[in-house]
């Protein structure tokens, strides 16, 4: 705000002049396309697309120059080694070492490198200090396990010549069929091919070559190669020239999913969940999906354009089967998608027709490193992918509650005022955020002495109601003398360097800045030190961190980021590591926040904008700078769902929209949608009107308050879903295909979602003036309106559910037990001791099932058994609570502390008619001498609405084993 004010006075004159001249135009809100590359402007993208076009054009006349040298093949301990030979000319063959690893988990990994580069037998141009190898350290930042090799994988000795078969996976019913010439690999499950590498022959490893300087006149020489060399040695974009000291080194591969009509994944794009074809045609994209983490200003919707983060995990789905591939490469990557439908009988259109989806992946540098998952369920992909890249960190409990953010709360008094106002209007919130204006002169780890003279006092006030503060810390460090952090960064040589090895200087919020290079272990060590309480003054333990601009965003860099020939620790070029850059910064912050003082070991909370596979272990993400429009509200659902199935489910969009002012209705609907984001935060641009929920007039204020309280009421269910994600990798909010993998009609649905395993199904309203929504039900179970128990039933149909402004359309699927906490409090921390309500939603057979996970929500004590994990099961007229946890050294202590936390109410929805006669139930708790009785009331309801029964105060402890007999 300070900056703008100064600006305002400075520029008022100019503006008046402009107005006087009468040439004010309303700006079209749109991304600056000229700032970001199209495929045709990216050398390797153009080359690989051209390669594919060339192969396709030649058809059967063409054969791939890649051949696996049969004599080189060795198989040992679940791993196959060999050498692929790329024929460059009759006499020259380039050696490409191949490793196929068959992992104990049933995942296969295919790695292809280049011998010459691997052995550093190449020369770099421009006296570059860069590393000569292809980048092979991405896994250092991304993978955390799951690499144990299969003991049971075996070479099938009966393979025909020119083919190697490996049996692996569960009961060895997976099979890799490796054809030698031309090289390709088919991955089969139960005798059927699900994933086929190099099926189309687009495999392309641009081997190292010496630059041949063509002097005038002998230009003829090169034309025989027929390759377009114009982008091999140098590329210029937006006034910035990439010197490319290693020459062309891109990798490309086609991956076909035979019989699969839908592919999902590869976030982050503002697009539908089911990915579109990218080679043109009606409803398709013209450009490939791009992954090159970028700070895209005012991004556009329904676009394959790159955004802030990237997870190169793609899953293919068809009724009853899900498979996937994970492309572990940190360089700029593009993916083309083409679908082809073949009909078994051309006369019977649609019947027995088969759709194949073919994806074409290419990255600018590095190895080919592909993981192949054979499913067969979406849950299998989540689980196996999580074994490799890690599961979602079990978050601090406050982090899943409501976050109040704005650019900016301008003073410490302002923060305290907002805090008081939430209490005044009795709207719960847990976290308030500070964007960049809290800083003194945009220097991280400082406070503006004029606007935030007393940060500790502010944090203490927040702590009084167990609230937290999140402050922003970005990777650009202001280049300024006498700023200790800047001086240390330089003197210790911990910053990213330019192509000449000098400290890199670029522009970001603080003006001239340097970037901490978190690839450097010394930099991480230094960064950890900066967060100690005595270093980062003015922060208490209730302060957490927001890492923004870590793509990295460089205002004056090419495509708003760093030059690709910049150098990082280990002399890796920025081009090689760009997409993991963001998580290395988060990793440093995560390690810093783990233990800010000795012994104070707590789960960090970090929000990141840039991410890559693995970010889920350390952080939450949001979808960046969206806009206050209905369209942006709508796209937030597929974006959040896509992150969920891609292993990074702690995701959300800015509630209200970052840019511009939302109408009251839009803001209200956005809250009603935002409560279903795993990460639920309202945020606003500095030029927008204040829009804290209490500022909105009635009736909108109460409606928003109700939405926020609905989130709080369901926090036990949310936390349980997060726990599930932390051990199984499952999404926290789930799309239709994930929950009903055999229901084809649901595969394209991405505007309704299920909350964890609770059976809660919601379709938030994302259009203006809407009063009803059509919720699609895939199964034949009864679904009940969350608020009045109206019954909806009918598989494969859409059901009209009322959704006036004041109502969030939410249904409960029969067969679940939903844990809630109904008492409103100021913050989630203050709900810790409140009793539970269990909502038992009976299925067709009169049964229901559900789980609950509880721990202290803050420490790592759960790793030593300090948690409650229960399964609630209703059958045979009995609701039982069963322990599904594993005891540890801290279990007893925790259970004792939680002994007073009870179940205050059990609501049974759609109970048998016979219960009308009942007025009591029998309660049997483990350890009690005798059974006790609790009152029960049966309530009939008018037609169309299910009856329900309420058990009052069964006085059972949440941590104990008990049963209630009806």
């Amino acid at each position, binding site marked *: 705000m*300070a900056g*703008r004010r100064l600006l*305002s006075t400075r520029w008022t004159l100019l503006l008046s002049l402009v107005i006087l001249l009468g040439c*004010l135009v309303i700006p079209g809100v749109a991304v600056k396309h000229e700032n970001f590359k199209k495929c045709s402007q990216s050398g390797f993208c153009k080359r690989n697309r051209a390669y594919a076009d060339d192969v396709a054009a030649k058809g059967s006349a063409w054969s791939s120059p890649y051949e696996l040298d049969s004599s080189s093949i060795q198989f040992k301990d679940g791993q196959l080694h060999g050498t692929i030979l790329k024929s460059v000319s009759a006499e020259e063959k380039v050696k490409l070492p191949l490793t196929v690893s068959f992992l104990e988990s049933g995942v296969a990994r295919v790695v292809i490198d280049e011998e010459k580069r691997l052995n550093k037998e190449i020369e770099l141009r421009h006296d570059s200090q860069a590393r000569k190898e292809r980048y092979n350290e991405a896994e250092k930042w991304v993978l955390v396990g799951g690499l144990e090799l299969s003991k049971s994988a075996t070479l099938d000795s009966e393979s025909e010549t020119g083919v190697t078969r490996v049996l692996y996976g569960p009961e060895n019913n997976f099979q890799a069929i490796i054809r030698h010439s031309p090289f390709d690999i088919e991955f089969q499950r139960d005798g059927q091919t699900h994933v086929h590498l190099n099926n189309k022959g687009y495999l392309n490893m641009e081997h190292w070559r010496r630059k041949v300087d063509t002097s005038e006149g002998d230009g003829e020489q090169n034309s025989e190669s027929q390759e377009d060399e114009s982008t091999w040695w140098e590329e210029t974009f937006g006034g910035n020239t990439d010197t490319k000291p290693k020459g062309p080194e891109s990798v490309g591969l086609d991956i076909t999913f035979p019989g699969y009509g839908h592919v999902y994944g590869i976030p982050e794009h503002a697009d539908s969940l089911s990915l579109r074809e990218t080679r043109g045609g009606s409803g398709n994209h013209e450009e490939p999906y791009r992954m090159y983490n970028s700070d895209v200003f005012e991004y556009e919707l329904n676009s394959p354009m790159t955004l802030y983060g990237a997870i190169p995990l793609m899953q293919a789905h068809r009724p009853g089967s899900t498979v996937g591939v994970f492309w572990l490469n940190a360089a700029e990557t593009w993916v083309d998608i083409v679908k082809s439908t073949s009909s078994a009988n051309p006369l019977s259109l649609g019947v027995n027709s088969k759709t194949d989806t073919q994806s074409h992946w290419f990255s600018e540098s590095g190895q080919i490193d592909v993981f192949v998952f054979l499913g067969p369920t979406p849950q299998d992909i989540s689980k196996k992918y999580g074994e490799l890249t890690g599961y979602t960190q079990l978050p601090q409990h406050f982090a899943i509650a409501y976050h109040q953010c704005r650019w900016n709360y*301008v003073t410490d008094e302002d923060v305290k005022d907002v805090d008081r106002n939430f209490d005044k209007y009795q709207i719960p919130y847990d976290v308030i955020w500070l964007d960049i204006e809290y800083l003194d002169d945009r220097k991280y780890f400082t406070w503006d002495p004029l606007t935030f003279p007393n940060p500790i006092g502010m944090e203490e006030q927040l702590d009084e109601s167990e609230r937290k503060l999140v402050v922003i810390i970005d990777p650009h460090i202001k280049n300024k003398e006498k700023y200790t952090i800047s001086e240390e960064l330089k003197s210790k040589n911990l910053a990213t360097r330019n192509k000449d090895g000098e400290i890199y200087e670029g522009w970001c919020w603080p003006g001239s800045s340097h970037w901490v290079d978190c690839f450097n272990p010394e930099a991480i060590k230094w960064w950890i030190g900066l967060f100690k309480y005595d270093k980062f003054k003015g922060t208490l333990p209730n302060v957490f961190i927001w890492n923004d601009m870590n793509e990295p965003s460089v205002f004056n860099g090419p495509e708003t980021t760093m030059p690709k020939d910049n150098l990082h620790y280990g002399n890796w070029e920025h081009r090689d590591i760009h997409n993991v850059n963001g998580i290395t910064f988060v990793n440093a912050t995560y390690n810093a926040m783990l233990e800010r003082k000795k012994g104070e070991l707590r789960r960090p909370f970090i929000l990141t904008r840039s991410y890559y596979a693995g970010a889920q272990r350390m952080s939450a993400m949001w979808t960046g*700078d969206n806009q206050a429009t209905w369209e942006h509200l709508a796209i937030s659902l597929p974006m959040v769902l896509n992150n969920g199935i891609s292993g990074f489910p702690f995701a959300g969009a800015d509630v209200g929209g970052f840019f511009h002012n939302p109408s009251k209705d839009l803001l209200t609907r956005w809250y009603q949608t935002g409560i279903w984001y795993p990460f639920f935060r309202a945020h606003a641009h500095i*030029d927008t009107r204040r829009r804290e929920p209490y500022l909105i007039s009635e009736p909108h204020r109460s409606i928003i308050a109700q939405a926020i309280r609905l989130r709080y009421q369901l926090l036990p269910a949310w936390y349980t879903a997060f726990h599930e994600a932390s051990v199984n990798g499952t999404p926290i909010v789930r799309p239709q295909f994930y929950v009903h993998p055999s229901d084809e009609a649901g595969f394209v649905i991405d505007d309704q979602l299920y909350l964890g395993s609770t059976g809660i199904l919601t379709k938030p309203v994302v259009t203006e003036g809407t009063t009803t929504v059509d919720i699609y039900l895939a199964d034949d179970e009864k679904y009940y309106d969350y608020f009045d128990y109206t019954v909806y039933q009918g598989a494969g149909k859409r059901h009209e559910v009322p959704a006036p402004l004041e109502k969030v359309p939410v249904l409960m699927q029969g067969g679940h037990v939903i844990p809630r906490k109904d008492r409103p409090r100021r913050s989630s921390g203050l709900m810790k001791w409140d009793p539970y309500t269990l909502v038992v939603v009976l299925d067709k057979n009169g049964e229901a099932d559900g789980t609950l996970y509880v721990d202290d929500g803050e420490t790592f004590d759960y790793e030593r058994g300090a948690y409650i994990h229960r399964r609630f099961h209703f059958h045979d007229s009995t609701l039982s609570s069963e322990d599904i946890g594993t005891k540890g050294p801290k279990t007893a202590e925790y259970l004792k502390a939680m002994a007073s936390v009870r179940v205050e109410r059990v609501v049974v929805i759609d109970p048998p008619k016979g219960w009308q006669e009942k007025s009591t139930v029998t309660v049997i708790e483990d350890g009690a001498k005798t059974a006790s009785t609790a009152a029960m009331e049966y309530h009939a309801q008018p037609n169309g609405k299910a009856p329900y029964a309420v058990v009052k*105060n069964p*006085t059972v402890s949440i941590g104990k084993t008990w049963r209630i007999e009806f």
Partner: protein
Amino acid sequence: MILPQGLLFFVSLAACSTAVVAASNDGSARPRGVGPEFAKFYKDTDTFTCISHPAIKIPFSAVNDDYCDCPDGSDEPGTSACAHLSRNSPLTVADRPGSNDLDLTLSLPGFYCKNKGHKPSYVPFQRVNDGICDYDLCCDGSDEWARVGGTKCEDKCKEIGKEWRKKEEKRQKSMTTALKKKKELLTDAGRQQKEVEENINRLEIQIQGQEIKLKDLEADLEEIEKQERSKVVTGKKAGKVNVLAQVAKGRVEELRTALAEVRKERDETRSRIKELEEILSKFKVEYNPNFNDEGVKRAVRSWEEYAARGTSEGLENAARDRDLDEIVKPDDDKSGVNWEQWENEEDGCEANLVYQLAAYLPPSLVNFIEDKALAIRGFLEQNGILPTKDEGSASESKAVTEARDAVDAVRKSIEDLKNQVKDHKEDLDTDYGVGSIFRALKGVCIQKDAGEYTYEHCFLDQTKQIPKKGGSTARMGNFVRIGSVTIDQLNESGEIVPEERISLEYAKGQTCWNGPARSTSVVLQCGEENEILKIAEDEKCVYSMLVNTPAVCPGGEEDVHAASGRKDEL
């Protein structure tokens, strides 16, 4: 729904036994959390009747059993079990069985804290047993009776009460002083108003006097003119052509001066535009497209369009400037008009000349020229480039001129006096609040440091933002009117109740970069001193200030009125 009596008999009473009745030593055994005004509802120790739903009766043992039975929450005065009964909550049918009443009304204001040693108060139910000692409302710590998670809130009423009483005493004192000050302000305002009224009276008497004088002078003027007309005036330069030449010369000189002036201004403006264009083109090159400031981007786009239409570069025209140089040279026998010659022309030629000129021109053109000349002159006069000219002055005799001047002077003085009266009357009609109290504060300025600015509020004048780090002061609005705003206040039981406050509205301040003209709403509250308490930017460049002033303290008007009334009679 009505719970059949007796059924709840079986309900485990573990929780209730500790919760039902608060330990009490004041003799009246009310259930925990019940204030004295509600005690009557809790007298029957067998059955409890929900306060706003008398049809629903529950066993008394269900009162404060930490389970919400009544749709109005009245059975749980001492727990948080009914805290969810609020229009802020996502209620389901099971939360209020049997009640389709959408208007949720809780019958209790909150959890009653006795606060012995201080004053009793209500804590919102959602704060009961949440693990936080809400000492600001419940100094005796009784809101945390369940000691969840080991919370222990000791009774701090003694010290808090003492502190409060001290403050209260101070506040009372301050209120007394404030009221005194308010009365002074009222007296002041009354006096000032009276001064205005007296001024009006005085001025009106003056006007009457001047009007009589004017009549006399007008008569004089008429007399002198009559005498003048009868005189035969001849003189060397009194011929019509000579007079015309004189007039024309004067006019030409005036036009020439005006032209030179306008040209100078044009050149200055031109160089300023050039300077601005340079700033803007530099701005376009140097601005950061990623700085996410829409205003900057809009300005750049506008500049590009502006520049595309041509910049000030193209405006310069050397040939035209040379012409102008020529024109502004003074007339002499070599250039321009030789006035000497015309001034000395013989009378006889006059008609000829005029006829000669007109004869050669078609009548339509003559009309056209006359019209144009008139229009141009009118335009120049309206824009203050040429002074209005009294037609006949050049040819009048001194006596007439003097007489006319005298008349004019008196006329002007009357005009001035009338304007003063008008201003005063307008001032009297202006709203200065009850008892015109703000009359006494008009122009009084107060300041406050907040963050990187010092803010200034001058009552009924303007508001300002003065940066501490240097840079120019921004006007945040000029006084428009006295208004009122509704503030959400919390009542004793934590409910939001609207409260009217007097506000002073300031608007049309400096325009914000990429935003509206600044405006400020100054919300007033009673206080001993004139003092800015808080400044907030509610939305872009729309500010609000909370200001203390004795002027809005309640009461005081009657006393002062009575007093001033008496004075009036004297």
